[in-house]
């Protein structure tokens, strides 16, 4: 057939999704991987995968987040495996370097108190907080992306907010009476 420089409807769908979600996905994936370039690879992969779907995913954003998340964790697993398998010094450093204690502390200084506190939460809680407050996903969507049940997502968010509140209590946010949380 003749050359097609213009995308068709499905192609437009891809490009539109790219316009709309690219940055959010890169941000989200970077936070998992701790590395912009690898995050970009993952996001690119996700969009290329979208191009090979049989039909447009019904919940495109959710789909994209899920694919990015899965790929990102694949990348982490693979690196860990390679690091163990080959006892490859640089690989280990690379992982550590992704979120080394020194770098983390340094990074934290540059962030607001809130973000600093967020970054002290368990990684899973951080991720879910980000999906909620950074990406604006609903409980249901978060559940779909992370594979957790909706109620579990609810509990995690609740607990994360609770501990954030307690910690921020001593900081700049003088909150009245916050005790009694489980």
């Amino acid at each position, binding site marked *: *057939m003749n050359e097609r420089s213009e995308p068709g409807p499905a192609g437009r769908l891809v490009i539109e999704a790219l316009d709309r979600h690219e940055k959010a996905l890169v941000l989200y994936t970077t936070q998992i991987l701790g590395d912009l370039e690898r995050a970009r690879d993952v996001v690119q992969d996700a969009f290329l995968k979208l*191009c090979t779907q049989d039909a447009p995913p019904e919940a495109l954003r959710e789909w994209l987040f899920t694919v990015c998340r899965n790929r990102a964790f694949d990348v982490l697993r693979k690196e860990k495996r390679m690091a163990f398998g080959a006892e490859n010094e640089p690989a280990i450093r690379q992982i550590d370097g992704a979120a080394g204690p020194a770098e983390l502390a340094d990074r934290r200084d540059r962030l607001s108190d809130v973000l600093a506190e967020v970054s002290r939460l368990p990684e899973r809680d951080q991720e879910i*907080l980000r999906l909620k407050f950074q990406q604006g996903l609903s409980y249901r969507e978060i559940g779909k992306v992370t594979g957790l049940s909706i109620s579990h997502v609810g509990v995690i*968010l609740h607990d994360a907010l609770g501990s954030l509140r307690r910690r921020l209590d001593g900081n700049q946010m003088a909150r009245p009476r916050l005790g009694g949380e489980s």
Partner: protein
Amino acid sequence: MTQPDHDVLLTSYALDEFQGEDLARIERLLAEDPAARQRVAELRALAALLSDELGAQAAPGLDASRRAEIERAAVAPRGRLLRLDARPWAVAAAILIALGGVIGFGLGGRPRDEAGRKVADLDPADRRDEGFRARRIVDDARSESGSEVRRDQDLLATVDRHAGEAPVPVDHTMRAPAAEHERLLAEDPSASAAQGGTKIGIVTTPAVQTEAPNKVLAVAGKAKGQVVPGAEPMDARAKNDLIGLGGGASGAFGGMDRERSKTAGPGSTRPPARPGSPTPPASPGGFAPTGSGSPGPGPAGGGYVGPQPKPSGAPTQVGGEVANSARSAEVGLDPALGNSEEGLRRRSVDLSRQLEDLKVDAAKLPEANRRRYLKSIDDLATQHNQELAGRVEALDALREANAAKEELLEAQADPLAEELAEVTQRYEELLSNGSREVEKNDRKYRILRRLVEDELRRVAGESYSSVDEQPFKPALAEPLSTIGLDVDTASYANVRRFLSGGQWPPRDAVRVDEMVNYFRYADAAPEAGENLAIHAEVAACPWNLNNRLLRVAFKAKEIDRNARGATSLVFLVDVSGSMRSNDKLPLLKEGLKALTRQLGEDDAVAIVTYASGVRVALEPTFGNEQARILGVLDSLEAGGSTNGAGGIQLAYETARKAFVDGGTNRVILCTDGDFNVGVSDTEELSRMLEHEAKSGIFLSVLGFGTGNLQDGRMQSLANRGNGHYAYIDSRREAEKVLVEELVGTLMTVAKDAKLQIEFNPFEVASWRLLGYSARILEAQDFNDDKKDAGEIGAGHSVVALYEIVTRRAGDDLTPKVDPLAFQRQPELTNLGKPGEIAKVKLRYKLPDAEKSRLRSLDVIDDGRHYGSASVDFKLSASVALFGQLLFRSPHVAQASLEAAEELAMESFVPEKDPRGLRPELVELIKKAIAIRDGRPQKEGPVER
């Protein structure tokens, strides 16, 4: 305070997760709880803070090159999603767009098809699905049937919603000529038909460009067909329909091109309107009514109805397209599956072969270690084959289901496509499971391989018994052949089992001496005062007529069953789980019952069993208590693991308790070979067996079942215990061994029987012994009464065969080396009579004697032809030839199985063969011929 789960709900509420009734309910609760309201406010403040802070974080997004690659992919026809642009999905989209609305396929789109969602993420999701879905959409759009109604309504709702919500901006620059056009239409109906035709042409342009949307053409063409011929009386609605179809589509294209980023739905493949393109006139016709959302005969409704009327061309084509896409998918899919499945099978076969090789290697290990490895190899092979067989079976079944469904799919229904996708997926899963299994077993194989190789290296240098054939030996340098005489017969039954199962017996399973001794011969019984008679016969060797064949036979005296002394038998029965199969414990029980019925009043029987534990199942019991013995036999059940070590001690202890002075005392080990004795225990066991044999308790070993791995081990055990080893593979064999022969073996008439033959080098150039490789003794052992040898029971025959190369006239017997400097060579003098080729010497002890007696026989070759040899000679010769052919001995390279069959036929003498063993021999040879020629085998044991 509120409960924890209540708190969680509160958080959810604060984060706006609740809707509808739930929301109302929680708000009612909150109204009564100021503390909770306070908390919600705090949570919302925190949430807002987090949204602000986290939301302020930003990533740079993709870099230009990565983005460019995605954009390339988005227009490349390789991506499946993008292929849709040129395929039915896009067609459906185009149709729906044409129907007057922009359908939100993508962002925020509603679920259209559960099945579609399910398979959307699956990588191998086959291409069929796309055709299938496309067809469903098309069908949805026109279906009136009940099951499709809901879907229709959903679709309609979608169409309506999007039609209402997403008005596509209409270009005003295009509206002006459109208005002009409308005016023209109103003036001239026939012009509208002409315009319609033109417009349809426009719609088809992208269709042609993108190859697949033939259906757009078809649908449009249909409309055209309706309209054009009857152009004159065309009513307004028809006009609108027509315009709606084409105009909607073009309008949508136009709108998309301008407002790409804002358009919710996909556009079409059509490039932006080119200058000079006759698009504009059609546009407004489609959009004015749609935009206004007007009901009734407007394009939204009318357009929807458009494709509905029993369209003759379009649906056929759509159906054809689906069928085609299914067919092409099938073509694309099946070879791939076939290949990987084939690969799976091939790898499995490879692995099995490797395991066989490994087994061969492991067989070279010393006995104690060999057992362990062979067992693991066997286990692995069994496990592997079972797993594979199961998977391959499932694969076959699934493939059939797949094929059947595919056929049906071509013929008809959609639901089948869904099922087909599932079946295909299951098939692929199974396939990959199978591969994983093979890989897993592959790993196990490699580990085993390494272990065996290590073990082989470790024991390199240690000698292990070889079952190889004896070579020709020069009679001058090695005139003596010395062997222990024994009447083991297990090999024949074993060979029979293999051949009956359509399998060529493994080399190690074939022992010529045991095969020859399986048969009953008519050799004369010894004279009074002797327990063994010696017979010798020489005739032409049937597989090499230049050579001679010497048959030496020893016949033990018959003892009337009723005249024999009292007997004490201890059966040591393996009742481990592996004995459960019908050819093992049940067969043994049958045989033992038959034996029990033969017991006299003075005969005692005891039963010791071993499995996980060892126990005396039946204390020594006299033969008059038949019912009790039979009852215990009946109660024997197989189960548990194998722990043979303790069993044999207990059996001997029991035998000592019931020892009959001057009678026959025997332990009979019945097992399928799982006889666990540790490495260090083996020597101890051997010493014990020898010790017990001296004190008068002998050991017989009866092998059962198909695991012949321990064949050699059982044979050596039996030999240590002055015993007899037999393999039992059928009920008749059980009776033969347990009732007829055990009685013989039970009543040993000669122990430590040894044969020594001295060949006359003036008559014999060289000689070779057939079989008996495991029983060869040193020449000096012959006269050593302390050297253990074979036992011969009442009525048994033992036959030894030698192939002889005769001395030819003119053979130079003088040494080929210089005369020795320091010793004088003895003069070579022929002390034999003419034709005297050998002297046969026999030593044996009477059962209760410590000193052996020596008997001898001179063998004179009378130049007999094979034809004039005795029937017994011919039978022995044919069995020996058969055995040698089975392990492909180079010595019988010139002979064939057919020759062996012919020879065996000559030994048919019904009156000398009451049990019909000889016809069975012929049958077995025929089976071997069939296997050799690759002819299919009838399963099942040989009828005897």
